[in-house]
């Protein structure tokens, strides 16, 4: 039985300090005020909580508001200082390790979901989205495309007629009920894209690099493949799902924006390669059905690939060497050219009008 130690008792019901004397038994703390015992705290439930730097603070139990405060410098305080902290007030090495392990598991689960689950869900969801909604999405993407590449559509009548003729043939060969709208934008960038909802943009830079109608036909057919498979919509759903999951993971940790962008680009780069291969197959099939070879398209892509600088695994369009091989050989029974020389020249000059 220890001699009484001066302390402050706070019963948790009234905000008044009560000077008391406390003593430590084997199984309880005795709290005495003016000689009489006012409380007995069983040691089994007594815990230490946070106190100011030089003060020891004890609680009766995990749920009790009552507190005992004594100076850490007082003689006899060491015995009380040995009382363990409240369980959730401890963040020692073991607790930290547990948090790291669980966070790693959560992080891994979110990342794996982003890589494997999101594409599957995006696929299913794509089938469920009505065409009207997809077209609306297309309008949104359209505005952004116009912001980046300019909104000057090339409209030379002869060129436009040639383009229409080509598109109709390709759409019919590909089995599409209506030919998607194909528009040439005045931009030196050699690129082409299919928007959700069916609009296809060919940038003039690509027309400039093409050396024959078959090359451009391949590209247009490829983009029609994307339209047929609703790849634009699927890509948006995938990107949305992925960035949502990864954003979930990092919450408000600042500076994660950079990491998120890299992850997104890498992940989306991988998954849309399948979409590209399917579009290539669509183009091959359509060209063969028209009695033309898919190889010229591959030649055009090789020419473009020579000038690219982003590393292969980050690019959404697969490496051209493998692609060339996948495109396959020419038709068994080749047919006449898709465009006359006149039509081809008109197409090349579609952006020359004022």
């Amino acid at each position, binding site marked *: 039985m220890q001699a009484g130690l001066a302390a402050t008792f706070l019963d948790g019901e*009234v905000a008044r300090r009560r000077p008391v004397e406390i003593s430590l038994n084997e199984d309880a703390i005795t709290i005495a005020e003016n000689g009489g015992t006012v409380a007995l705290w069983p040691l089994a439930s007594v815990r230490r*909580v946070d106190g*100011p730097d030089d003060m020891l603070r004890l609680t009766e139990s995990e749920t009790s508001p009552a507190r005992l405060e004594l100076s850490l410098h007082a003689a006899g305080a060491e015995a009380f200082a040995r009382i363990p902290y409240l369980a959730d007030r401890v963040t020692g090495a073991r607790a930290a390790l547990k948090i*790291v392990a669980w966070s790693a598991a959560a992080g891994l689960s979110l990342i794996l979901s982003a890589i494997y689950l999101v594409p599957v869900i995006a696929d299913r969801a794509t089938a469920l989205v009505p065409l009207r909604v997809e077209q609306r999405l297309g309008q949104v993407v359209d505005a952004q495309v116009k912001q980046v590449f300019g909104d000057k559509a090339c409209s030379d009548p002869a060129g436009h007629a040639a383009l229409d003729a080509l598109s109709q043939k390709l759409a019919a060969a590909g089995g599409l009920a209506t030919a998607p709208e194909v528009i040439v934008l005045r931009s030196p960038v050699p690129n082409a894209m299919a928007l959700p909802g069916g609009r296809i943009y060919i940038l003039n830079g690509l027309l400039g690099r093409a050396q024959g109608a078959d090359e451009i036909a391949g590209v247009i057919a490829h983009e029609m493949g994307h339209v047929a498979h609703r790849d634009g919509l699927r890509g948006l759903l995938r990107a949305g799902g992925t960035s949502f999951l990864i954003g979930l993971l990092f919450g408000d940790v600042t*500076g994660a924006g*950079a990491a998120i962008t*890299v992850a997104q680009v890498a992940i989306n780069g991988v998954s849309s390669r399948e979409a590209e291969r399917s579009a290539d197959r669509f183009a091959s099939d359509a060209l063969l059905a028209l009695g033309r070879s898919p190889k010229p398209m591959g030649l055009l892509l090789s020419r473009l690939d020579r000038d690219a*600088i982003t*590393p292969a695994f980050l690019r959404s369009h697969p490496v051209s060497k493998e692609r060339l091989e996948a495109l396959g050989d020419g038709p068994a029974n080749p047919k006449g050219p898709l465009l006359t020389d006149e039509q081809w020249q008109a197409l090349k000059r579609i952006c020359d009008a004022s």
Partner: protein
Amino acid sequence: MAGPPATPMSFSGRAGEFFGMLVRGTLLLIPTFGFYRFWLVTRLRRHLWANTRIGDEGFEYLGTAKEILIGFLMALAILTPVYLAYFLVGLYLEEQKAFASLALVAFLWALGHFAVYRGRRYRVKRTAFRGVRFWMDGSGLAYAGRAILWDVFTVLTLFIAFPWRMAALERYKMRHSHFGSLDGRFTATGMDLFRHIWPFGLLIVGVLIGAGLLNGWASSAVLEGKVDTGGFMVVSSVSTALVWLSGVACMVVIYTRMLRWWLSGLRLGEVSIRSDFRVGGVLRPSLWLFVGVLVWSAIVVALGAGIVFGVGGSIESLMAAPTATKAVAVFAAVALLYLVWMLGFGVLARQFLARGIWANVVRTSAVVNIAAFEMAVAAGSERGNGLDQGFADLLDAGGI
């Protein structure tokens, strides 16, 4: 000027101890993908609360990390469909572009106010003194509504209404704050605050106008050939620097006076606070932060240069023959360094601004009539879970 008895407040937390907790917690943010932030914030608050003392008595923070983690998950579950709906509505309204963005901004603005109120409610509900708990009622939605109306009015009056806005919102918050059975209120008025800060608001406006006029005169002088472009650059940079400096200086003074005004208006029962907070209390920590950020940035840049050139050779070799692996390595290194820099900046901001200003405010305050606290009997519902904090965390509504 002897008033009623005042018990001075003090802050006993050691800066080194806080810094150690901060660094350890921030490092743990990395392997935990940021999840550790709940434990870090809780640990820091426990330290700050317990070492904030009235006389030699300290407060106590009763919140737990688990609580706010669950609150975060709950808030996520509630806000995810809301964000999704908001995205779809935005799509639908894309045609009426202007209105779409307006609705978006208004919604986020309201949500921000809501989160601020709920965040404060959580921190109040998890604070105890002498074993008795503080608590808050009132509605986050009601607060958000009031705050938005006041914001609009403030903008319409070109910020002249700002002091009255602060007073009205604080009155709402304090009306719904309690310590046990003691009720809170806010007695400082918008007029009080206006009287203290109007000269500095005017100064900012004056400097802005002056700089604008100066730039205008300088550009017309250049067009007329009276002054060459070199002279114009000098005038432009000097005026910009002046605007920035005076703007920052005025903001610091306004912030200091607003804090003092706010403290002087708080009431819990018959207990009040007397504040002696001065500009130095904000200026000193800000200068420390400025120096700290410079040093830290220098370290990160040096580290970055070392890594980049170690991997890629000199700049010339990098430019001459960029290989795919080199490009990826450099890109990844830059992203990583950015992350490291942000984490370090977070540590510095919390150490100097959050802790520094907190400690300075506490040390210059005194509680008047603390005997009135003894009238407080434990009261208030135990409702209010980590969801309150979860909202604030999800929406980044700040606070310590």
